[in-house]
């Protein structure tokens, strides 16, 4: 059990209080995107109502206020990830853009034909496709750590997969499709023993657990704001300062330069070097507000409530005949992928929606995982700390009604 007052927390999320098709909304699609608390919505709204101006430019008061708010959020992200310095925090559109940035600016310049990029079978498409593009550009090879039937990484041959040709290990901390928590710290240690840099995709981890990039000792860490109660279109890249300093810019434009002439342009210092153009200022401010909100609730409390929901939901689903959970790793975030025998997941999604229960159905941007299990799709319920035990019961009832309809 957790110490959270769920009713008080739910009052912070205005969107949760509505009916869908005559039933109270039960939002269990948090792994796709989370809902936003009033505190985040108000921070964004306050910025546009009172402080809107471009940053790092004007000498006028509004520009100064906008710049201060923007940079204060960077400080919060630094603390949130326990990075060493604000210079190590680059704002991006999300985890996807951050991975593309590392692929193109860090890995590409040192990549030669037949070099290797190591990822895993559990990855989201965002941690597959940027590396495939890079392989096409350079003739490098993509290597894939296999998975087991329970949805865990099969690390039996991990040591042999780390070769002197491996130029990066890029690995998700939590699987979005199955919820598996991967042993990224020990994997990073093994990669580093062979001088292989490590990128961790934390998109599914940051909403649920404390992240400490110094403890993980990773070289890069990426995440998206919208999965952790912040607006869409904002995320961040953490990169070790010495690596970021040595990397060429990812995009050129305003704000990332010290001086420009037609003969020579001198790039700005970190972190501005990687933030070309006017950034998503309101998104950054919203992200800062989301971090404040998570700190206020307490990340340990968030983790405890979600673990509680995962345990009771898993127990109740396992007790239902004709329902199979896909992904049964020992260490899981609050994600349950499941199949109802004889009912296609897409039909499940429509029938659930008619009862107000919002889940994701499909391949979850992880088609290789679906192929591993030889299924086209799953239904996926994913929980946040604002979900209640009553909502777990609504999920169970929705499953039973679906089975009745298809009986």
């Amino acid at each position: 059990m957790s110490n959270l007052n769920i009713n008080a927390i739910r009052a912070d999320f205005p969107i949760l209080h509505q009916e869908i098709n005559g039933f109270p909304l039960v939002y269990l699609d948090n792994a796709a995107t989370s809902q936003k608390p009033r505190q985040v919505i108000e921070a964004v709204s306050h910025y546009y109502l009172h402080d809107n101006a471009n940053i790092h430019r004007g000498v006028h008061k509004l520009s100064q206020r906008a710049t201060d708010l923007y940079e204060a959020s960077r400080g919060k992200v630094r603390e949130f990830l326990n990075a060493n310095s604000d210079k190590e925090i680059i704002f991006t559109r999300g985890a996807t853009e951050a991975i593309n940035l590392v692929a193109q600016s860090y890995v590409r310049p040192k990549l030669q034909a037949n070099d290797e990029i190591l990822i895993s079978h559990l990855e989201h498409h965002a941690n597959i496709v940027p590396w495939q593009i890079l392989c096409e550009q350079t003739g490098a090879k993509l290597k894939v750590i296999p998975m087991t039937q329970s949805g865990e990484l099969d690390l039996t041959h991990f040591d042999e997969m780390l070769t002197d040709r491996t130029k990066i290990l890029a690995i998700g901390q939590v699987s979005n499709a199955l919820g598996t928590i991967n042993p990224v710290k020990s994997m990073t240690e093994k990669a580093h023993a062979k001088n292989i840099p490590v990128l961790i995709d934390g998109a599914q981890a940051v909403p649920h657990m404390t992240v400490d990039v110094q403890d993980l000792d990773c070289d890069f860490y990426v995440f998206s704001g919208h999965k952790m109660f912040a607006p869409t279109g904002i995320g961040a890249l953490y990169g070790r300062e010495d690596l970021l300093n040595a990397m060429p810019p990812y995009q050129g434009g305003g704000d990332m330069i010290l001086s420009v002439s037609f003969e020579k342009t001198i790039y700005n210092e970190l972190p501005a070097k990687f933030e070309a153009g006017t950034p998503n200022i309101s998104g950054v401010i919203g992200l800062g507000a989301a971090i404040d909100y998570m700190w206020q609730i307490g990340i340990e409390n968030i983790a405890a409530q979600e673990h509680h929901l995962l345990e009771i939901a898993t127990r109740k689903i396992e007790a239902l005949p004709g329902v199979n959970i896909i992904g049964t790793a020992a260490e899981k975030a609050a994600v349950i992928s499941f199949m109802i025998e004889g009912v296609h997941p897409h039909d499940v999604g429509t029938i659930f929606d008619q009862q107000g229960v919002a889940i994701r159905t499909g391949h979850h941007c992880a088609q290789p995982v679906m192929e591993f299990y030889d299924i086209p799709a799953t239904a996926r319920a994913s929980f946040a700390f604002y979900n209640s035990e009553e909502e777990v019961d609504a999920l169970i009832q929705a499953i039973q009604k679906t089975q009745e309809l298809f009986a």
Partner: protein
Amino acid sequence: MSDLRELYQQVIMDHNKRPRNFREIEHANHLAHGNNPLCGDKLVVYVKLNGEVIEDVSFKGSGCAISMASASLMTEAVKGKTIEEAQAIYEQVHKSMTGEETDRNLLGKLEVLSGVKEFPARVKCATLSWHTVHAAIDSDHDISISTE
């Protein structure tokens, strides 16, 4: 739940459980793959054309109840029809799914598919086999289509 019962009514459930013409045609002279990447519906439609007449039509594949039932109903509806007649039937089906006026005589029991109009996210599931049979007839070689 009433709209839902309308969508998943007996005919749909029956065709989903026991799809008609669910087989390969050994000497099919037209064939197309249909793919709905959003939900993973995948099917192959086989057509044996004799001049302008669809002498035989069948399908294989997997997908949601709506896509499977729609494919099954499609094969029943267009088998023995001319290409032009099949096209006219599809136009009626499409109109019924988007809530337009339809010719009930032409539509017949395909009217059950009109239930998807209340579920916009599912229209692609219901139209997949129709697009695929159309692509098969139009092409001389194996062709793949996608609803996205």
